[in-house]
C-alpha cells in the first residue's frame, strides 16, 4: 500500500530551483533512505512532506504530495498533517524543560490534560524509543542534562508521543557517536513495524543497514529509486553507481 505519493514536485527558493520534477512513492511500514551529496535537496524534500518549508519565506511549490491519497497542500490541515507526519531533526533539539515535559509536550498541545493518560503516553513513548530504562529515575530533570544520543532518542520519543503514522528523520545520527548511532538504527528497525519511515542519511552503510528502499538525489532530481539491494548492488544509472562506489560526494 502506498502511504505517500509525490507527483511532479518542483520547489523554488526565490529563483533557485531546489527540487526538479520529483516523483516518488513510499510503501506503508517500510523504511526509505534518501542518499545523495550535500545540497542535493534531500532535506528540502522531506520538509515538503510535513510542510516545514511553509515556515521559510519565498518558497514556492508545484506538484502534489499525497498522504493516503489526500493532497497535503490542499486537503489536509497543516496541524493535522504534522500530527500524522512527525519529524526528527539532524541536531538533537530537546526543549529546555524536563524529560517528562518534552515527551508530554505534543499530547498536551493536542488537548490531553488527564495526568494518568499523560503518564502512560510518556512511558510508552520512552519505552518505544528505547530510552525508558535510562531516564525513568530522572523524568523531572532537565532534558539538556542527557547525552547527545539520549537527547536524540528523547526527540524520537517526543515525536512518537503524538502517535504519528509517518516519521521523517533528517540525518538523525550525524551528530552522534557510533554506539548511539547503532541504538538509533536498531530503533528504526523496530519502529518500521508500526510506522512508515523516511530517513535522510549521508552514511552509505547506514542506508544499506536500515532501509528497504533507497532513493538517490542529485542536484534536486531523483536519479534512481528502488529496493535498497538493487540500488546498491545493481544500480541502473551510472551516476548512482559512481556515488555509491565513492567516486564523488
Amino acid at each position, binding site marked *: 500500500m502506498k502511504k505517500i505519493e509525490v507527483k511532479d514536485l518542483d520547489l523554488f527558493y526565490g529563483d533557485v530551483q531546489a527540487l526538479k520534477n520529483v516523483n516518488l512513492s513510499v510503501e506503508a511500514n517500510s523504511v526509505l533512505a534518501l542518499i545523495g551529496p550535500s545540497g542535493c535537496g534531500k532535506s528540502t524534500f522531506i520538509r515538503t512532506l*510535513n510542510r*516545514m518549508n511553509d*515556515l521559510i519565506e519565498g518558497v514556492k511549490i508545484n506538484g502534489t504530495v499525497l498522504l493516503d491519497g489526500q493532497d497535503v497542500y490542499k486537503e489536509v490541515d497543516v*496541524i*493535522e*498533517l*504534522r*500530527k500524522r507526519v*512527525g*519529524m526528527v*531533526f539532524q*541536531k538533537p*533539539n*530537546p*526543549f*529546555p*524543560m524536563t524529560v517528562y515535559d518534552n515527551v508530554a*509536550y*505534543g499530547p*498536551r*498541545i*493536542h488537548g490531553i490534560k488527564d495526568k494518568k493518560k499523560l503518564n502512560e503516553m510518556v512511558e510508552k513513548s520512552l519505552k518505544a524509543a528505547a530510552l525508558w530504562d535510562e531516564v525513568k529515575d530522572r523524568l523531572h530533570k*532537565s532534558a*539538556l542534562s542527557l547525552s547527545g544520543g539520549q537527547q536524540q532518542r528523547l*526527540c524520537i520519543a*517526543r*515525536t512518537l508521543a*503524538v502517535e504519528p503514522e509517518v516519521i521523517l528523520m533528517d540525518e538523525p545520527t550525524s551528530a552522534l557517536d557510533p554506539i548511539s548511532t547503532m541504538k538509533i538504527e536498531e530503533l528504526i528497525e523496530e519502529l518500521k513495524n508500526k510506522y512508515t519511515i523516511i530517513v535522510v542519511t549521508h552514511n552509505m552503510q547506514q542506508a544499506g543497514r536500515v532501509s528497504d528502499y533507497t532513493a538517490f538525489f542529485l542536484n534536486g532530481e531523483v536519479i534512481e529509486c528502488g529496493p535498497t539491494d538493487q540500488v546498491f548492488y545493481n544500480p541502473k544509472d551510472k551516476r548512482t553507481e559512481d556515488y555509491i562506489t565513492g567516486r564523488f560526494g
Partner: protein
Amino acid sequence: MTIDRKYEMARKRQDMAGKVIVFTSAILLIILVISLFYFVASKGLSTFVKDRISLKEFLLSTVWSPDRDIPAVGALPFILGSIFVSVFAIMISGPLGVSSAIFMVEISKKLGQKILQPAIEIFVGIPSVVYGWLGLSVLVPFIGKHFGGLGFSLLAGILVLTIMTLPTITSVSADAIRSLPIEIREASYALGATRWQTIRHVIIPAAKSGILTAIVLGLARAFGEALAVQMVIGNRPVIPKSFLEPMSTITSIITMDMGNTVMGSVWNDALWSLALLLLLISFTFIIIIRLVGRRGMYK
C-alpha cells in the same frame, strides 16, 4: 641571527607595552570604583555615626524636616516613592515590552526590523530631560484636567517611567528571544503546535531568564532615574493617599535638595545616606541580574 634577535626584542617590547596599558587601565578602574564607594559610604554613614541618627529612624520614620533645630530625617516617604514609581511603571511596561519583543521577533519580523527596532533605538537615545519636559507639558496638564488634582503626581511619575523603561525591556527581551535556537521552534511546529502554542509553551519559558533580566534592568533604570521623575512628580516629602497626589523619590529629593544644603550639615549627610542607599540598591539589582543570567539554559 642578529636580525632575528632584534625582531624578537621588538616583539617582546610590544608585548610588554600592551600588558602595561591593559593592566594599568584595569587597576585604575578598580581604584575608581572602590574610591567612589568609599566616598559615598563615608559621607552617607556620617548621618548615623556623627549625627547620631538611628538607622531605624532613617529607614522607617516618615518625618522629613532636616532644616529644623532638631532635624528629622525620616526617609521612608522617598524609599516608598522610589518603590511605587518603579514597581508600578514596570507592571505596565513589563508586559507591554515583552509583548512587543515577541511581536517583533516571532510574529512580524519585517515590521519589527523596519519600524519597531529603529523606533526603540531612538527611544533609548532620547535624553531623560526630554521625557521629563514632555511629561511636564503634556501629561501633567492632562492628568490635572481629566483625573483631578494638580497633575503633578505619583501617576505622572509612573507613566513617564513606563515610557522610559519600555525600550529597555523590549530590546533586552527581544535579544533574549532572538538568541533562542531556531531548532526548538522547528521542533514545536513539527509536533503540530500552532504559532501561539509555540510562543506560549516553548519560546517564553526558554527565554525566561533573559526576560527576567530585561525586567530587572528596567526596574534598575526606573529606580535610578532622577530628572524626568522630579519634573512631574510634585516633590512633596509625604506618603500619598492616592495616585493623583504628589510625592518624592530618593533620586528626586537628592536633586531637589542638594543645592540648598551646607556640607557637613545633617541635611547634607542625610542626602548622602540616600545616595548610599541608592548605590546599595543598584548593587542588589546587578547581583540579581547576574544570578538570573547564570540560571539561563541558553546563553
